[in-house]
């Protein structure tokens, strides 16, 4: 797969949420921590509702449960790296409360 780190690009991928307790406060915080390390815009979409991937409040407002079908979209100079890093967080069983 060609890397396009040098040019602004957009990456979009569907993902099934892995965490048994859903995207609650701690995984949401972990997600935002990771997302803010990238320059790209990060958007998480559930049932047509968009959340800024760098806002904990917006992510919590999605109320995403385990098995939820989410769309992750990244746009910017490091879109692909951001997508890959964040997909991992959503797919794996994040730490539990």
């Amino acid at each position, binding site marked *: 797969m060609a890397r396009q780190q040098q040019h602004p690009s957009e990456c979009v991928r569907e993902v099934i949420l892995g965490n*048994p*307790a*859903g*995207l*609650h*406060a*701690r995984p949401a*915080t972990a997600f*935002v921590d990771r997302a803010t390390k990238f320059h790209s815009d990060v958007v998480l979409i559930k049932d047509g509702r968009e959340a800024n991937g760098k806002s*904990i*409040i*917006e*992510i*919590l*407002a*999605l*109320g*995403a*449960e*385990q098995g939820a079908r989410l769309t992750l979209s990244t746009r910017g100079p490091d879109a692909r790296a951001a997508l890959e890093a964040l997909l991992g967080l959503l797919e794996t069983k994040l730490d539990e*409360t």
Partner: protein
Amino acid sequence: MKLQEFLFPAAFVPRLESLDKEGVIRELVEALAQAERIPKTRVSAVVEALLERERLGSTGIGKGIAVPHAKHRCVKEVVGTVGLGVRGVEFAALDGEPVYVFFLLVSPVNSPGEHLAALGLISEALKDDTFCSFLRQARTRQDLVDLLVEADAGKYAP
């Protein structure tokens, strides 16, 4: 689910006396016990569970708001309350700002969905800057009740 189904006005603390994290949490849990939403004999255990959760990472989610929460066997459904700090409380919030508004939740042990829904509803309202601003201006229990009624009616929905 509506905010008014799990946030109980009898336990609201419109003027928190405490100025630190542990004190605020204790004050709110005691208010929940006074309102008979958790057993009085479990106040210390619930406070400890909430502090334990804070040690894993602050629930200060920014914009002067914190959502301290924990699971405990003493509740059968999510119970919560709202507290307002007259002065900002140092809460190790993620944006480093002091916290003025607290939504405290105690959830049953085996219903992550209910906890997620409650947190989601609160966050949905908090997305609205007008709601946040009115929260910060609220001074009485009735101010808080009015705001929750409006939020439940969809006034702050996007």
